[in-house]
């Protein structure tokens, strides 16, 4: 266990030093949030709901940052580190066989924390008022909801060849966010498609929780199914990958 901790600590240090990681998990979502939120008037609500645009974008971009933090860095790192033999090198240590992937899960789970918090802080400074309990609940929904994306990152890292990871990442990241309503509220056909995606459901769940709306069990079920499915796929890809390393 100390080995996994030592490796996780180094993973976190690496993430903090990496400009690309900082860009995708912190700067990019924050700037997009600022741009989107400033374009709306305080108090202006999303059509057919009682939530303001600013609150909507707060949750949308916090979930966008969490998605980036959980998915993109791990997928890229796992693929690269497998290709470059780092995983083989770790197999020559007393680190438990699953220590590498555990440290990746741990570091992704830690990396989503600042991604969410920073958008929250910026949102609060722009006049989004929520009770403390609602801030905490929204944070927990986004944070735990990001596990689905952590699992996807691991599945992509082990399952996709290193030179294609970037492409798959961008597809999942951008298309998932677009159809999940991360960039703007969806209506009509787009929303119908988006509803089957975890990006939509995690954002909607957090939004419902703070607006006091009814939380549909179908939404929770869809998110759980994605988490379980991606988790299973990650485990399969991981096992296949370990045999090939």
């Amino acid at each position, binding site marked *: 266990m100390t080995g996994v901790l030592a490796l996780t600590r*180094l993973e976190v240090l690496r993430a903090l030093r990496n400009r690309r990681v900082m860009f995708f998990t912190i700067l990019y979502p924050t700037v997009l949030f600022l741009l989107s939120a400033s374009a709306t008037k305080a108090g202006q609500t999303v059509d057919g709901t009682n939530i303001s645009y600013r609150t909507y974008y707060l949750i949308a971009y916090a979930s966008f940052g969490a998605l980036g933090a959980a998915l993109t860095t791990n997928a890229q790192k796992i693929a*690269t580190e497998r290709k*470059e033999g780092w995983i083989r090198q770790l197999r*020559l*240590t*007393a680190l438990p066989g699953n220590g590498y992937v555990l440290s990746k899960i741990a570091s992704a789970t830690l990396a989503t924390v600042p991604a969410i918090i920073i958008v929250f802080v910026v949102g609060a400074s722009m006049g989004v008022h929520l009770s403390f309990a609602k801030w905490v609940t929204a944070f927990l929904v986004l944070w735990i909801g990001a596990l689905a994306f952590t699992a996807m990152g691991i599945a992509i890292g082990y399952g996709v060849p290193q030179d294609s990871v970037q492409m798959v990442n961008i597809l999942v990241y951008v298309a998932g966010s677009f159809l999940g309503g991360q960039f703007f509220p969806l209506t009509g056909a787009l929303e119908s498609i988006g509803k089957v995606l975890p990006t939509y459901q995690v954002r909607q769940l957090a939004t419902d929780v703070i607006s006091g709306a009814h939380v549909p069990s179908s939404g929770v079920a869809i998110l759980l199914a994605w988490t379980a499915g991606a988790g299973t796929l990650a485990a399969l890809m991981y096992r296949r990958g370990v045999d090939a*390393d």
Partner: protein
Amino acid sequence: MTTGIRGGPQGAAVTFENVTKDYGQVRAVDELSLDIAQGRTVAFLGPNGAGKSTSIDMLLGLRRPTSGTVRVFGKPPHDAITAGHVGAMLQSGGLLSDVTVRELVTLMSRLHPRPLPVDDVLERANITEIAERKADKLSGGQTQRVRFAIAIAGDSDLIVLDEPTTGMDVENRQIFWAAMKTQAERGKTILFATHYLEEADQIADQVVVINKGRLLANGTAADIKAQAGFQKISFRLPGVTRDRLLMLPNVVSLEVINERVLIQTSDSDKTFYSILDAGYRPEEIEITALGLEQAFVAITQQDNGADAPEARAEDAR
């Protein structure tokens, strides 16, 4: 040869017993049996695709043999690694990005059951002055030294090095082997694969030659040279043909280039007296011992000539 380290059967550090490894149709390692005693410095030689890397991978538990068993200090390789008996330096691959050399070595030392002080490891691997540099921004030689530091970051009993000096200049190579000798003097068993035969000749006290996945020779460098055909005779003899010299005793190989004859022989005295007895009076005579490199080439060529061309293990990986 017993050095009092925790040992397996007969105190062997490494045992291969009838180990075979197939990749599909290709046999990379063929019924390899081999013992490496504790405390030895052993060179693993073989042409590309001979099965060296596959053998080392099996020894490190990175690949499973198709049949046969590999034991490291009497244990399955993975158990020996978990117990901290083995430190290894792999042939290829980049180091981790966004970390310093010191952080990387610190991690590897923490991952070892018997960690060594990081500053000592850095010094032994001669990388103290690059300790604060980023691990993925180093020259080839520096990278190799960091990899070596990773192999010695814990107090392992066996150190395995797959082509450790590739990419190093002459000076770094000397520094590297000096560090290696210190490890050997501390009672470590060292196993290294190399392409540089002079390194094997100077450093190893046991040389293992593998060709086409089979054990071809196993002994001291002197044994290998003897096995290869100990000496080389060269002389000028106008008007001679190859056919007339083939009858000579102890000849391993024979070449006639213009008027110059080159003979490899397992007994230069007998061969040379026979030349004289046959009535020849050669000129410009030279009789020399083979170097390990020539010996290596000679025995692998003999082996390759011994059976018809077949599926080579080349590029099996």
